[in-house]
């Protein structure tokens, strides 16, 4: 299965923060019986394991599994009132097709007022209180099928675009999950020098729960997060974002162990993998920020895949960037010697 096929399955799977089961099952079925072990831990994260013959240590690579969604907060006549899971720009929700995970799946749309009714008036962006989801049912039927707490997903199918581009929902962070699935399968086939724990973490978009608990239980020697980063597009220049198609983005800064950063860069250059560098002066806003401070501290790296239109149902990535990220980390698992914890005195 190639990256595009893996990504299609993962993008179309449903798994909001705290409701990751659907996506977790999809990941599990992609890995089951193909690598050394696949476990679902106590908090819901999926861990795929590939062991080395003579391991230099344990390396954990975390990609968060959860996605943005809406959640039912009440029934208002024929309409469903919703709250948010993750950081939405409400403007993109208007007019989207959705799936309400009620007692059974219900198709619906986020309501929009037709221009016939707003003529001449300036349209205000609706508040969360004004926003509503419509599945076309009457109040009575609705109350039977939908309850407070049911998640509501964007009903967006994965779509390849021209070139190596593809668009869909939840590519933040299923693009990285697809990379990790592919990495685990490839590592098993080619052999590596570190025991690899590929962790598909839960609840990154809300609390970072999965990264805390999985890192604690695996207690790796080296930790990685792979996430998406802002991609350039109209109105979003290279001062804010990274161009797509130019390779993985390697982070450096206080959140990142310098040896990991330097080794990644060297490998990319040796193997002629195009890469970009993202200096992050503070915390990275990813699982890497959490992994680094678990237990006695874990040397941590962060590699990101550029992605356009983040936190919308039309998130867009370049498939080559995903593949290059996979190859970069695969070489790292073969070549990285490890970090010696000693204070070198200069004298």
């Amino acid at each position: 299965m190639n990256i595009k096929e893996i990504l299609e399955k993962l993008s179309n799977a449903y798994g909001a923060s705290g409701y990751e089961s659907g996506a977790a099952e999809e990941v599990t079925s992609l890995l089951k019986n193909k690598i050394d072990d696949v476990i679902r831990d106590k908090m819901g994260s999926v861990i795929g394991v590939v062991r080395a013959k003579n391991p230099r240590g344990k390396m954990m690579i975390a990609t968060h599994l959860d996605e943005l969604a809406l959640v039912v907060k009440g029934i208002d006549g024929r309409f469903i009132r919703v709250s948010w899971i993750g950081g939405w720009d409400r403007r993109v929700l208007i007019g989207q097709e959705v799936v309400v995970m009620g007692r059974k799946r219900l198709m619906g749309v986020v309501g929009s007022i037709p221009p016939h009714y707003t003529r001449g008036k300036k349209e205000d962006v609706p508040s969360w209180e004004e926003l509503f989801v419509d599945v076309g049912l009457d109040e009575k039927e609705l109350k039977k099928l939908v309850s407070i707490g049911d998640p509501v997903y964007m009903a967006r199918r994965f779509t390849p675009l021209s070139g190596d581009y593809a668009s869909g929902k939840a590519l933040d962070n299923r693009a990285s999950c697809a990379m990790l699935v592919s990495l685990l399968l490839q590592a098993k086939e080619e052999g590596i020098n570190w025991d690899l724990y590929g962790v598909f973490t839960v609840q990154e978009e809300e609390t970072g729960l999965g990264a805390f608990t999985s890192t604690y239980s695996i207690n790796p020697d080296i930790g990685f997060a792979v996430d998406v980063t802002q991609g350039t597009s109209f109105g979003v220049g290279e001062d804010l974002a990274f161009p797509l198609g130019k390779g993985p983005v390697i982070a450096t800064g206080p959140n990142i162990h310098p040896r990991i950063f330097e080794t990644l860069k060297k490998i990319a250059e040796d193997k002629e993998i195009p890469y970009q560098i993202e200096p992050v002066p503070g915390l990275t806003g990813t699982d890497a920020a959490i992994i680094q401070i678990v237990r006695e501290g874990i040397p941590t790296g962060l590699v990101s895949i550029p992605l356009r239109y983040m936190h919308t149902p039309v998130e867009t990535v370049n498939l080559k960037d995903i593949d290059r990220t996979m190859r970069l980390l695969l070489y790292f698992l073969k070549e990285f010697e490890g970090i010696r914890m000693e204070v070198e005195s200069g004298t």
Partner: protein
Amino acid sequence: MELEKLSNLPGVSGNEQRVRDFIYKKLKGKAKHIETDAMGNLYAYFPSGRKNAKKVMLAAHMDEVGLMITGIDSSGELRFYPVGGISTSVLLAKPVRIGNEGIPGVIESKAIHVLKEEELKQYPRIEQLRIDAGFSSKEEAEKKVKLGDYVYFDTTFKREGDRFIGKAFDDRVGCSLLLDLVGEKFPLDLVLTFTVQEEVGLRGARVAGYKIFPDAAIAVEGTAAGDFPIEKDTGAFPELKKGPVLTVMDRSIIVDKKLLKHFIKTAERENIPYQFKRPNIGGTDAGRIHLSKTGVPSMVIAVPIRYIHAPAGIMRGIDYRDTLRLLKEALKNIEEVI
């Protein structure tokens, strides 16, 4: 009912070819005569064979609202402009298809992380939006996309029980209803008219009205249901599941009272639910047809649809069936009021 196929076909105003071809194939061999005109309207004639039969025109428009490519940036991103009434509020982060080949693209929407607070509080202007189809340069884009290419929403018809979700219900629902009348016998010379360019100013209907100049005309529409939680001064109407929507007046016509009364009486006699459209909202082909030559008594009947002029609307099958039933019953003796 051909609504599913009709809804999925692209046919933005001025580019109705594929819808017209589909309808033509459905009518071929069934109508006495089929023709088109300079604008692209399609006419199917069903004469009754009776002498002095009244001529009634049923009009449904084939076009839908959409977008048109108006420019290509050096980055390969596409500029566009709406065709028909589309608010930018429904455009952000929607999947679309471009041109006759249906090249997939998405309407861009900056990530919330890079947006300024003021930007989050208002909808962008159309000039601030782009379509991303995965092109890396203008040269690459120009191989697949041309200026003037039409863009339609990438929405596939879905059905769950009696509920339908899809694009272009305004007015493929009318096209489908007209097709469902084929085979029925009426004491009328019926002209099924499938018009073009309704959404850009009722343009096809103007010439159709002149060409056919019927004794009466009925626009068969998909109309904007108003049963969402906004208006304060009236109840929320028209509503889904409350039957066909009859227009008293909109921004294009004050309908013929005799025709309207006939439909109301028929509905009451046959126990078919009906409701009224909110006055002074929207306009339809009837608004042009009734102005033809010395005038044509005209009216509008419509299926209520929530979220027209947006990527996906919702409607109920029962409203479609009730509208069809009312049309059939009313046409049986409409000649009495013409």
